[in-house]
């Protein structure tokens, strides 16, 4: 103590000494201060330092040149350091400030210090740094809460404000951000601090909350600065949810959200334009890839930050951010990026080199979108992205639909699109699945009416699995192949790593374990069931009811919901429009303009665009009085529009209980509508349309071979007489012709050109379906379908030709405009069971436009006809998504391995969904679908036949299979390990979440991937990296790449390897197709089995 006093007195007396005492004694002081924890002494020391410092400060006060000398500055700084240390060490007593702090506040020490620093601009940065360090220390180590005191906060804020205004160096920035971070931590710990800060900020008009504004500017920085800034902001966001005023402030008075969103856009534009996706099992941009792309890391950081903000912030902030992300990033940046090619052009053209660049960019954008979706976890943000994808339109086409069209495009784009869809499907999101699949399946138009209850069937006896497993390509069955001896003899002995008898030498060794597939299927199905527990409806064919989906436009978000969220969304118009297109049961004109328009949108996708354009015509065939339809089993009909096999997305269907043609004819007979010769052309056409479509619905199998005249089944005289009669024949193929005189000519044309038709079951096609003379102008073309009847397709047809396709279509061309509603067929109820064996031409059918109220009964369906009647619902259609997938699957032999793997993975994932509608559609082999709806089993059967066929044409298919198996196994690093099982795991073939296998061998595998894919798919070998990799790879079979030509084995020569590259590519694809098919059916069979044993608490119908 005496020593203390001595020094104090000593310091008081000395005026100019820069130090109180030597450094040693300072430390001793500090040490003793702390150790002694004697507040008194600390205070005194503190005051000591202060007095010294203030002396220097005051000495310059008022002088013209307030700059201090370096010594002076150093002196002050040193003093302050001590003071800070003392202050920090001081303990508070129950919240009241300690003596030092009191002293500090009374004397406004910090303000003065700050003022002094401010004046000393010579040392600008240094002083700032000092101050910052000081504050850092204080905030960090202080035992008391300092930040609630104005005298502490004010200088701090001043300092910060000063930093805002002036450019600061990196080092200062570091400290600055650090301090801000610390402050935020303090704030979150002690909310009083927040209020102080907030109230303090009222002094500054411009930036109410300096801290905030500062932090915002550092959000997008790289490295630790950015990270700290983001963390600090997150802390504030968390607070904002607790304190509404903060939330409001952030939302209304800062530009936090816009900055964030525009930052996203900016960072996105920095991303590379092209990515490499040549691996076979590319499943999405992987973490390893991201590590190589710093721009991507930045973007993802920001994205995750947005994710976190949305998660924890105040609802105001959250909504604002979401809307900014939507309107500021998704719509203006990502939307165009995804659509850089010109939509509407045919796919082959788009795949050509002409559009290669924009294609690349589209591919990249799609891959990015997939990555972003995977990285998001916060539902609100996911919802934003999904709304963007599902409902947003680009160039009038919903983004989802344009994505669907890409499934069928070139290999790379197809791959990324499929990956994106996998991610979408994997979200287990009801909205997504609804838009993709369920809204088409719910009406149950894809199955026969009688089969509807069967949708819910559980396959207890694994019959579906059995059926699927029977689809294994015979070429893959080892026991059916030639004996090994024979095989060996065929080829010259080659040096191979797999001598006969070893583990890799036979195809059987690569057999995958079905048990593993079962395990996998179990996990997959159970996860899906768990996830879908929160869905609103079980989609089991009853709930939601099949007739609950009237108009597909309805499914757009309700207008009110959207406008509720944000006023920023400018899409209300689109929503309003959607409600217009609503179709209601019982309303006339079932197909309204919107639907036409929608169909026209769809038009660009299908090949039969001209068919779709006849939506105008189709709307003719309307039943105005739906009620009657319902009550009396009427036929409501509309010509089919669009799509292959005449499926369309728009119109009503024909009732199933159709009788054969005679009944219909007889019904037509019975019509007692007077002939009105003065009917206009249009009107007669309209009525004709309706008749013809119903006729088309009833006409069954048509034989192609018979001639028109002789044809017509056993009632062959019917058509001839039909033709003979001098009545207009509306359903005759012919040219569109407006003149009356052409009737005869029409018929001639028909007989020459048309594909004749023949009624299947002896019924006579008797009635002339036309009106009397002169008015019928409709032409149609009848094409045969072998198994069933199409519900008729209207097609504008200027000329007909014998169509060898297996279609049954009745198309009509007419000039009517599309908005008139079609009159109903007149009907006489008495027709009923009476069948008149009318000879064609004996009667004439007369129509009246006025009699609209009749309805008729058709008693029994014609054999083979499989029309589905669903009043008011759509034609048999499973939606563009499933159709695209299945048609891509049909071409499995031509697809590359990459595409096949992706495709089968996606379909398997879809098959894991427990909802009966989807599950039965994909896996139930017993379900009888509409003829226009292809089933998965059907397609796989066809593919397998093709594969088997092909395998017979290639000599050493067996060898190729074996080699392919080895290649795939080697790729997975399994083969080198002799001791272990060499059966490639199911994951090999069926992809999971990894893009490249993560293991010790990852780098080499990656290179191997590239190499293999180069070799196998003959990628552009110009890439040097790949070339060098190919040399470095440690495969057992070294494949050397000859640029541009193909590959050849070094170890062994393939006879046909060097030949026609196209041939070998085709072979390769076929071989891989066989392998993929083999594994795929196992996977599906396993899924089918697992679905059957979903137990009670997991059953999804137990909602």
């Amino acid at each position, binding site marked *: 103590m005496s020593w203390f006093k001595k020094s104090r007195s000593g310091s008081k007396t000395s005026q100019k000494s820069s130090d109180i005492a030597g450094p040693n004694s300072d430390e001793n002081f500090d040490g003793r201060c702390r150790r002694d924890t004697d507040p008194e002494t600390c205070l005194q020391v503190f005051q000591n330092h202060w007095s010294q410092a203030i002396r220097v400060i005051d000495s310059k006060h008022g002088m013209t040149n307030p700059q201090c000398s370096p010594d002076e500055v150093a002196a002050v700084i040193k003093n302050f350091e001590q003071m800070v240390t003392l202050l920090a060490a001081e303990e508070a007593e129950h919240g009241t400030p300690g003596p030092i702090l009191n002293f500090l506040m009374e004397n406004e020490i910090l303000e003065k210090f700050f003022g002094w620093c401010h004046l000393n601009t010579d040392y600008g940065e240094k002083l700032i740094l000092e101050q910052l360090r000081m504050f850092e220390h204080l905030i960090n180590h202080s035992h008391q809460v300092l930040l609630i005191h104005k005298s502490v906060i004010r200088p701090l804020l001043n300092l910060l404000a000063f930093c805002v205004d002036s450019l600061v160096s990196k080092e200062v920035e570091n400290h600055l951000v650090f301090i801000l971070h610390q402050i935020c931590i303090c704030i979150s710990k002690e909310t009083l601090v927040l209020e102080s800060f907030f109230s303090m900020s009222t002094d500054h008009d411009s930036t109410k909350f300096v801290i905030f504004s500062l932090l915002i500017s550092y959000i997008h920085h790289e490295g630790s600065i950015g990270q700290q800034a983001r963390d600090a902001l997150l802390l504030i966001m968390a607070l904002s949810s607790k304190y509404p005023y903060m939330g409001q402030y952030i939302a209304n008075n800062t530009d936090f959200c816009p900055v964030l969103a525009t930052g996203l856009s900016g960072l996105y534009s920095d991303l590379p334009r092209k990515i490499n996706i040549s691996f076979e099992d590319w499943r999405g941009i992987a973490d390893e890839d991201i590590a190589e792309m710093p721009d991507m890391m930045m973007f993802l950081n920001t994205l995750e930050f947005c994710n976190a903000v949305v998660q924890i912030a105040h609802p105001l902030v959250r909504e604002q951010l979401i809307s900014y992300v939507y309107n500021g990033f998704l719509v203006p940046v990502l939307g165009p990026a995804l659509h850089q090619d010109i939509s509407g052009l045919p796919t082959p053209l788009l795949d050509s080199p002409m559009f290669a660049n924009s294609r690349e960019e589209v591919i990249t954008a799609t891959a990015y979108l997939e990555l972003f979706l995977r990285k998001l976890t916060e539902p609100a943000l996911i919802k934003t992205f999904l709304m963007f994808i599902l409902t947003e339109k680009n160039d009038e086409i919903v983004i989802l639909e344009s994505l669907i069209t890409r499934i069928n495009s070139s290999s790379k784009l197809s791959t990324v699109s499929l990956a994106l869809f996998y991610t979408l499907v994997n979200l287990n999101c009801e*909205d997504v699945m609804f838009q993709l699949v369920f809204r088409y399946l719910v009406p149950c138009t894809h199955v026969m009416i009688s089969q509807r209850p069967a949708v819910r069937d559980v396959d207890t006896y694994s019959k579906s699995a059995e059926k699927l497993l029977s689809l294994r390509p015979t070429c893959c069955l080892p026991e059916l192949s030639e004996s090994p001896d024979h095989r060996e003899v065929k080829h010259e002995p080659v040096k191979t790593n797999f001598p006969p008898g070893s583990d890799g030498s036979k195809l059987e060794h690569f057999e995958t374990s079905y048990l593993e597939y079962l395990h996998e299927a179990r996990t997959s199905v159970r996860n899906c069931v768990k996830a879908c527990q929160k869905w609103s409806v079980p989609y089991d064919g009853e709930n939601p009811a099949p007739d609950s989906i009237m108009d597909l436009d309805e499914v757009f978000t309700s207008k009110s919901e959207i406008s509720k969220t944000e006023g920023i969304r400018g899409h209300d118009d689109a929503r309003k429009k959607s409600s217009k297109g609503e179709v209601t049961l019982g309303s006339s004109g079932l197909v309204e303009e919107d639907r036409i328009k929608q169909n026209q949108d769809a038009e660009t996708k299908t090949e039969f665009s001209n068919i779709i354009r006849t939506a105008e015509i189709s709307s003719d065939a309307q039943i105005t009085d739906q009620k009657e339809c319902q009550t009396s089993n009427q036929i409501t009909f509309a010509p089919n529009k669009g799509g292959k096999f005449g499926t369309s997305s728009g119109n009503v269907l024909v009732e199933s209980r159709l009788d054969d043609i005679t009944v219909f004819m007889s019904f037509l007979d019975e019509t007692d509508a007077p002939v009105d010769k003065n009917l206009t052309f249009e009107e007669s056409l309209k009525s004709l349309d309706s008749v013809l479509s119903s006729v088309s619905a009833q006409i069954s199998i048509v034989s192609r071979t018979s001639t028109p005249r002789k044809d017509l089944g056993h009632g062959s005289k019917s058509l001839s007489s039909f033709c003979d009669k001098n009545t207009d024949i509306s359903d005759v193929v012919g040219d569109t012709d407006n003149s009356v005189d052409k009737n005869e000519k029409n018929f001639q044309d028909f007989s020459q050109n048309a594909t004749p038709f023949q009624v299947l079951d002896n019924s006579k096609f008797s009635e002339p379906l036309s009106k009397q003379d002169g008015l019928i102008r409709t032409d149609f073309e009848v094409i045969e379908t072998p198994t069933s009847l199409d519900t008729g397709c209207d097609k504008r047809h200027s000329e007909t030709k014998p169509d060898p396709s297996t279609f049954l279509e009745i198309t009509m061309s007419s000039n009517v405009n599309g908005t008139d509603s079609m009159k109903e067929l007149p009907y006489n109820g008495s027709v009923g069971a009476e069948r008149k064996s009318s000879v064609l031409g004996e009667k004439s059918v007369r129509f009246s436009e006025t009699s609209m109220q009749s309805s008729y009964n058709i008693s029994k369906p014609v054999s083979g006809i499989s029309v589905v009647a669903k009043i008011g619902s759509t034609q048999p259609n499973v939606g563009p998504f499933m159709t695209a997938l299945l048609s891509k699957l049909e071409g499995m032999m031509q697809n590359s391995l990459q595409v096949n793997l992706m495709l089968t993975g996606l379909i398997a994932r879809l098959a894991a969904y427990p909802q009966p509608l989807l599950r039965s559609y994909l896996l139930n082999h017993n379900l009888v679908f509409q003829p226009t709806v292809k089933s998965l089993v059907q397609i796989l059967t066809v593919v397998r036949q093709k594969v088997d066929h092909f395998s017979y044409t290639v000599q050493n298919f067996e060898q190729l299979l074996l080699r392919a198996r080895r290649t795939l196994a080697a790729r997975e690093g399994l083969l080198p390990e002799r001791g272990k099982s060499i059966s490639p795991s199911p994951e090999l073939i069926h992809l999971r979440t990894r893009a490249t296998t993560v293991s010790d061998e990852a780098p080499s595998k990656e290179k191997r991937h590239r190499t293999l894919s180069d070799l196998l798919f003959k990628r552009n070998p110009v890439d040097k990296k790949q070339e060098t990799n190919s040399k470095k790879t440690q495969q057992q079979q070294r494949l050397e790449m000859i640029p541009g030509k193909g590959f050849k084995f070094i170890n062994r020569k393939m006879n046909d390897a060097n030949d026609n590259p196209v041939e070998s590519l085709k072979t390769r694809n076929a071989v891989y197709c066989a392998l993929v098919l083999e594994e795929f059916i196992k996977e599906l069979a396993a899924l089918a089995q697992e679905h059957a044993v979903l137990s009670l608490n997991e059953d999804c119908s137990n909602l």
Partner: protein
Amino acid sequence: MTEDPRNGHDTDDVNLATGTKNFEVEEEEASVRPRGERRKQLPSIPDSKTLGAMANTVNNKPATAHKGGSGYSMFFLEYTLMAEYNKLHKQRLPGVYVIPSALTPLVWNGVLFIRQGQYQDGVFKFTINIPENFPHGECPRVLFEFPVFHPVVDPHTGELDVKRAFPKWRPKVHEIWQVLLYTRRIFYKIDTKSPSNEEAAQLYEQDMEQFKKKVTETVQKSKDLLYSDDKSQDPHAIIFSLWDPEVHEEARRQMLNSKKTPNDEDADLQRKNGLSWMKCGSNQIFSRDDSATA
């Protein structure tokens, strides 16, 4: 009772032995006490996970050789039986408890509690033997532990005459739970037509007093046999023991609590939980603002 079908499966068979061995490991997980420890408990129906594991282990023979159609028949059979078992669960037949044997899925151990009627208080253990060519073969057979005195139960073998109810087993129509229902029903509704036990039928028709006496005897016998040792090697055999709070209280608590606790949520699951913004009953996507997440 002469025949114990549970012993019918030879433990010499490698696969079964393996199956058993493997299964014992699973057992502990499934909280079914191994037989050896002689810690008995009320029978518990294993959750499907155990069932699946059990089925898998039993089927663990390397069926890789010929994976033609025939090679998968074991899988189909297993899954068929699993599906049948699940359907059984859904029925919630009162008083009947069934558990497939650990040794083979074709044998199901069961116990029947009769709560009313003449056979009231009877506790009858039985096994269901399912034919290998199920569902295309004959109907499953039900064998009581001992020859229960009943017109349709064979007095020598203890076999219930199931064929009278299912003369021809029709795959899609008949299901195993119906067999159980029938098994239960015979004790409430006695049918004496073409009886397996002539004496019982006769007594029932003519001498009700004597019949009842015999029934009482049989009920008593069932209770006497209740706590007897189980001779089979089957870990899933239904074994009764007296209430022992140490053992049983815990199990009871677990059973009662199992429904309440929701599934564990990993951090991972947060992502795996599905999303839905559709309002119930509407067909509109994004019709809800909040998302329902599991």
